[in-house]
C-alpha cells in the first residue's frame, strides 16, 4: 500500500525547474514563451553584466553538478578586460549512477537551459558556449538541437541578440560514452578532441579552461536555475532551501520505494520526508542503505533518515550531497554486492591516467569477486581498506575518490555482511567461473 503524504510534507515540494515539464509542448519556443520563456533574457540584457554576477552571488546558488561550488563566485573568477575569448561550457554529461534529472530537463524544457546559457554568457562576456551532452542522451540531443535552431531563428542567438551589442553562438556537442567526461577538466580535453582525461589543477578553468582561455563550466541544473533567479530575484530564491544551501533541488529517487521519480524540494528535506513523498517503501522492504548523491558518495543507513539533505547536513553525516541521486536499498539488498557492481563501473570508467585509480579499482573488483564467491579471507578486508587509502586523494580527479566511497562506508556500516560471506553464512553470490583473475 502506498503511503499518502501528509500535508506538512507535501508543502515541501517546490516545483520551479520541473514546473514546465507538465506542459507537453514546452520544448517548443512558442509554448515556452507563453510560460514566461525568454522574459528573463530581456530583463538580464537590460542591466550591466556585473549586476548579474552580483545577483547570482546574492542568491547563494551553488553548483548542481555535485560539488556545490558557489556559482556567482565561479563567474566572478573570470578575468575581465583580458582580451581573451571567454567560454561557457555546460556540463550535460549526466552519468553519475543514480542521477536522472538533467536529461528530463533538457528533453522537456530545453529552452530553459538555452535561456540560462545566454544570460550566463552575457554575464561572463562569452561569445561562444558549448553544451557538452552525454552521447547516449539522443532524445535530449534532438530536442536541444531543435531548440537551439529555434533560438537562432527568433534572434535569441547569433549576432546582436535582441538588438544589443552582444553576440553568442551555441554548439550542442555530443560525447561518446565516457563517464569521466563529467569531470570538468576531462570534459574540456574531450571537447578539444582528445581522450577525456583530467588535467592537473591549478591552473583552474577560470583562467586556463577551454583552449587555455577563461572558462566557466556549469551543470545543466545550475544554468537552468539562472532565468528563474533573474525573474524572481535573490530573496525569492533564498526563500527556498536553507541559509547556506539555497533554492530548490531536484531529488532523483530510485529503488525500493513505491513511486520512484524526480521530486523538486527545497534543499534540506530529509530522506524520511522524501520517502513519504514517494509513497513509502515498497511492501516487504525496510530501508537499509542509501546513497545521498550517487554512487560516488559514501553510503548512509536507516539511522541517517532524518539527516537534512543539504550540503552541510549530509557532510555532517559523513557523506556528500553530490547530485542528490538518492538510490534507496532495502533489507533484501546486499551492500557487499552493490558495492561490487559500483566498483565494476569505476573500473570500467577509470580513464587510466592515474595509476592508483586504474590499478586500485582493477584489483578491488577482483577482491570483491573472491569475497562474493565465498573464497574471501579476513585479510581481504584489510587489503580493500589499504587500497582505498592508496587511491583517495592520490589521483588527478575525483573518480578514484568516488570509487572508494562505497567500499569504506559499506565496510564501516556493514562489516558483518562481509564476514558472513567469508565465514560461509551467506551463500556465494558469484560462481567460480566469474573468478578469473582473482587470486
Amino acid at each position, binding site marked *: 500500500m502506498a503511503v499518502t503524504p501528509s500535508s506538512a510534507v507535501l508543502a515541501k515540494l*517546490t516545483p520551479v525547474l520541473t*514546473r514546465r515539464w507538465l506542459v*507537453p509542448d514546452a520544448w517548443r519556443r512558442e509554448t515556452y514563451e507563453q510560460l514566461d520563456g525568454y522574459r528573463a533574457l530581456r530583463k538580464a540584457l537590460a542591466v550591466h553584466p556585473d549586476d548579474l554576477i552580483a545577483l547570482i552571488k546574492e542568491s547563494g546558488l551553488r553548483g548542481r553538478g555535485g560539488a556545490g561550488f558557489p556559482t556567482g563566485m565561479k563567474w566572478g573568477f573570470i578575468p575581465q578586460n583580458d582580451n581573451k575569448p571567454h567560454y561557457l561550457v555546460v556540463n550535460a554529461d549526466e552519468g553519475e*549512477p543514480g542521477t536522472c534529472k538533467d536529461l528530463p530537463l533538457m528533453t522537456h524544457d530545453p529552452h530553459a537551459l538555452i535561456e540560462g546559457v545566454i544570460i550566463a554568457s552575457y554575464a561572463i562576456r562569452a561569445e561562444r558556449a558549448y553544451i557538452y551532452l552525454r552521447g*547516449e*542522451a539522443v532524445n535530449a540531443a534532438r530536442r536541444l538541437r531543435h531548440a537551439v535552431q529555434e533560438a537562432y531563428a527568433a534572434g535569441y542567438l547569433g549576432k546582436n541578440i535582441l538588438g544589443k551589442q552582444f553576440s553568442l553562438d551555441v554548439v550542442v556537442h555530443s560525447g561518446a560514452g565516457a563517464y569521466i567526461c563529467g569531470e570538468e577538466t576531462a570534459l574540456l580535453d574531450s571537447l578539444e578532441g582528445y581522450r*577525456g582525461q583530467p588535467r592537473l589543477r591549478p591552473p583552474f578553468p577560470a583562467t586556463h579552461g577551454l583552449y587555455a582561455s577563461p572558462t566557466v563550466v556549469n551543470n545543466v541544473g545550475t544554468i537552468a536555475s539562472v532565468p528563474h533567479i533573474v525573474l524572481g530575484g535573490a530573496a525569492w530564491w533564498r526563500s527556498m532551501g536553507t541559509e547556506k544551501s539555497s533554492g530548490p533541488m531536484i531529488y532523483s529517487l*530510485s529503488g525500493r520505494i513505491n513511486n520512484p*521519480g524526480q521530486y523538486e524540494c527545497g534543499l534540506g528535506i530529509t530522506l524520511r520526508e522524501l520517502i513519504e513523498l514517494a509513497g513509502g517503501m515498497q511492501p516487504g522492504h525496510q530501508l537499509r542503505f542509501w546513497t545521498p548523491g550517487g554512487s560516488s558518495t559514501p553510503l548512509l543507513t536507516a539511522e541517517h533518515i532524518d539527516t537534512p539533505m543539504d550540503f552541510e547536513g549530509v557532510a555532517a553525516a559523513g557523506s556528500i550531497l553530490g547530485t542528490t541521486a538518492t538510490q534507496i536499498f532495502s533489507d533484501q539488498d546486499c551492500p557487499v554486492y552493490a558495492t561490487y557492481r559500483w566498483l565494476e563501473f569505476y573500473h570500467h570508467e577509470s580513464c587510466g591516467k592515474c595509476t592508483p585509480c586504474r590499478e586500485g579499482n582493477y584489483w578491488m573488483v577482483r577482491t570483491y569477486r573472491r569475497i562474493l564467491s565465498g573464497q574471501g579471507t579476513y585479510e581481504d578486508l584489510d587489503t580493500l581498506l589499504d587500497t582505498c587509502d592508496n587511491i583517495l586523494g592520490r589521483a588527478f580527479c575525483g573518480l578514484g575518490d568516488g570509487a572508494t566511497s562505497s567500499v569504506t562506508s559499506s565496510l564501516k556500516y556493514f562489516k558483518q555482511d562481509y564476514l558472513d560471506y567469508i565465514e560461509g553464512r551467506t551463500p556465494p553470490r558469484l560462481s567460480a567461473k566469474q573468478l578469473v583473475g582473482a587470486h
Partner: protein
Amino acid sequence: MTTESEDAARPVSLGFPTTLTGSGKDFPESLREQAKEILARYPADRSRSALLPLLHLVQSHEGYVSPDGIGFCAEILGLNRAQVAAVATFYTMYKREPTGDFLVSVCTNTMCDTLGGQKIFDEVSDYLGVGHDETTADGKITLEHAECLAACDYGPVFTVNYEFFDKATVDSALATVRALQNGERPMPTRGARLCTLKEISRQLAGFPEDRPEALADGVAGDATLAGVRLAQANGVSAPEYDPTTPIVTPKEG
C-alpha cells in the same frame, strides 16, 4: 627506409595497429560535405574539437569506426592516424567491429541490476546467442551491457539505439528483441521512434533530427513527473514571485 605506401600495403597483425593503415579516400563526397559542416561549428584554429562528431559521422557511414574511418578523420583534420585512433579507442560508443542496425544496451549498473537488469541481460544474451559487444550472425542486432543510463527511476531499463525501454522485464526485453528480428520497430517507452544505429550516429555528429514526428515523440514519463504532479494534485507550488523584481537591489539607507 620504407615509403608510406609500402607501409600501408604490409599487413599488420599486432592487434589494434591495423587502424593505422586505413584511408578515407573511397568515402563519398557527401560525407566530406558533412565533415565541412561539422568543422564550421568550431573555431577555425581549433578544428580538432570536431574530432568526436567526425568519428560519429564515419560511424553513420560504416556502422563502426573502421581503419578507413580513422584515416578519413585524420585526413580531414590534418592529424596522423595514431592521434585519431588514440581518441577513437577511448570512447565506448565508437565501435571497433561492424555493428547491427540495432544496438541493444542493457543497464547492469547497481540499481538496474538490483531490480533485475543482469537477469535481463543474461536472458537476452542466451536468446540471441551473443555476448557483450557481439553481433548476431545475421548482422541485425548488437548486444552490450551498459553502465548507468541515467534512468534509475525507471529501472531496470534497456535502450535500443539509445532510446529508452523502461521498467523492463525479461519478457518485455525478449519481445522487443524478437520484434527487431522480425523487421518491426517497436516503440520505445520514452524517446523517439526507432531509426537505425547509422541514422542515430548522424544525429550524434550534430545534425538535426529530420523526422518532425520523431521530434514530438516521447512524452514525459510518470517517474519524471512524479513530484510535479503530486504538487499539482495537492495544490502545492513554490513561493510566488514578482517577475519585475529589480536585478539590482537598491542600496539601503
